[in-house]
């Protein structure tokens, strides 16, 4: 266990199709904004962490070199962290480790992506080895559609009920996104529109899937002494958990998703959480697919296996519910992948410091941020609190 660490500021760009700026200009937007919001001088930053999707997505290898000036990293130590979809939460972990270790007091962490410039689905295929899996898993939707089917059959959840719960999440989150100034897709949807949208990979339909977004997020991690000295609102890192699985898709069960379960339990143990649904005030669950969000509720112990659909339909996880999930609209409405997990941490930090604006959950004191990556191997969970 290292020293206490706080997130003392974050800034997100507006996410969307950002052909108005080059990639370094997009990163500059987020970095400049976090310095402006916090009043911290870039000169006081001791080290920088940068992360994106794999280089095939970026079109430029070694993006942290490409971004050297805008990251204000010239003359400073810089680390790159890259774990595909979970990059953003891995970035937050890297910043946390750096400060918790006692090696630095003030670290800048930046995640970014320009998905509209490349081909995200083709990029995903390059995450797979060429001998076997690449022929069959062309992109993320197929993987998670098979996972969803495995889950619903295993727990005997009727297909209509899964569809209804997924539709509820889609309608709610696309609505929630109107209250998030940075969200990409904001749309008033009817259940009918969601249920009859075109199929991407069955059972996933268009409004069950996240968009391709461009965007960046910058965040500052500080030691306790530095946080006190700067006097900024602090979201304290109460717990972290990260777990991975076998490389080959067919080697492990995905309905009871062990790495998601283990990551959450590691984080809960460190934070002293026994009953997450009761103790957490808000969760930013990584939800690139509606169906997957349901599965996460169960893996994270928000409810028992097989219960997520019923509780979702009862409103347990909606904005007014017992444990609001993704009041920002989540990944479903904005997915600049390299930034997405860091956006989850930024949103969770805004919530416990009372700075989430129109999507603030009143009185939130304990929050969860999460992201998933690899093909489906990695899950990372961070717990943030308003008190150390």
């Amino acid at each position, binding site marked *: 266990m290292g020293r206490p660490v706080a997130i003392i500021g974050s800034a997100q760009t507006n996410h969307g199709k950002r*052909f*108005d700026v080059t990639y370094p200009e997009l990163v500059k937007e987020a970095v400049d904004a976090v310095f402006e919001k916090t009043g911290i001088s870039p000169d006081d930053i001791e080290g920088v962490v940068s992360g994106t999707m794999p280089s095939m997505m970026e079109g430029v290898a070694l993006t942290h070199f490409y971004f050297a000036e805008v990251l204000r990293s010239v003359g400073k130590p810089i680390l790159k962290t890259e774990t595909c979809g979970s990059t953003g939460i891995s970035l937050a972990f890297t910043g946390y480790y750096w400060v918790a270790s006692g090696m630095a007091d003030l670290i800048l962490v930046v995640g970014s992506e320009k998905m509209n410039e490349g081909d995200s689905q083709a990029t995903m295929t390059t995450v797979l*080895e060429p001998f076997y899996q690449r*022929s069959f898993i062309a992109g993320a939707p197929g993987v998670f559609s*098979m996972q969803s*089917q495995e889950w619903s059959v295993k727990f005997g959840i009727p297909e209509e009920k899964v569809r209804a719960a997924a539709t509820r999440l889609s309608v709610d989150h696309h609505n929630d996104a109107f209250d998030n100034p940075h969200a990409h897709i904001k749309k008033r949807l009817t259940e009918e529109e969601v249920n009859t949208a075109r*199929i991407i990979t*069955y059972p996933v339909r268009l409004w069950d899937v996240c968009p391709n977004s461009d965007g960046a997020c910058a965040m500052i991690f500080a030691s306790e002494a530095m946080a006190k000295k700067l006097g900024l609102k602090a979201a304290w890192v109460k717990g972290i958990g990260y777990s991975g699985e076998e490389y080959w898709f067919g080697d492990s069960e995905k309905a009871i998703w062990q790495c998601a379960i283990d990551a959450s339990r590691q984080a809960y143990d460190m934070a002293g959480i026994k009953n997450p649904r009761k103790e957490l005030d808000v969760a930013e669950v990584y939800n690139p697919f509606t169906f997957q969000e349901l599965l996460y509720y169960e893996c994270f112990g928000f409810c028992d296996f097989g219960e997520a659909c019923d509780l979702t339909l009862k409103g347990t996880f909606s904005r007014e519910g017992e444990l609001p999930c993704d009041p920002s609209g989540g990944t479903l409405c904005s997915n600049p992948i390299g930034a997405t997990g860091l956006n989850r941490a930024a949103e969770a930090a805004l919530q416990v410091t009372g700075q989430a604006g129109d999507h603030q959950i009143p009185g939130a004191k304990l929050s969860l941020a999460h992201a998933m990556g690899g093909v489906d191997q990695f899950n990372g969970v961070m717990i943030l609190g308003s008190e150390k």
Partner: protein
Amino acid sequence: MKKDYNTMENVIRLPHKYAAGQTFARFYNGLKESKIYGTSCPACDKVFVPARSFCPSCLTNLSDWVEVSQEGEVVSWTYSNKEFFGMPGKPPVVIALIRLDGTDCDFLHLIGGINKDDPDTVKSSIKKGTRVRAAWNDDKIGHMLDIKCFEPVS
């Protein structure tokens, strides 16, 4: 009003020659003869397919070869009617996890021999537990797609 901004197109093409290693080479040679080979781990008492050079659980180097069954059960599946980069064949496609008889992991492949007009039709032909069998291409090149697909056993 929406503005149009300039973009510049650039295609990066990087050819690779991936070494298959002895284990994959032998597996692919088996496909040329319409055989599916796995390797078994004596320590874990598990059979893996495609053949692995080491056990993913205990990391023991594997040298016990077994010809595995060409029949098994569907574990999960998905359907797409839209063409995407790297798709095996033309849409519509059904991709499935299949547990071949006597093996201890799921084998990814295509489902064929069924009407794939829409997901409801597919659902009437396959579900978890449906028995399927490998169907082979006449011309084999030592590739996963030498197996054309897996078809329901009537």
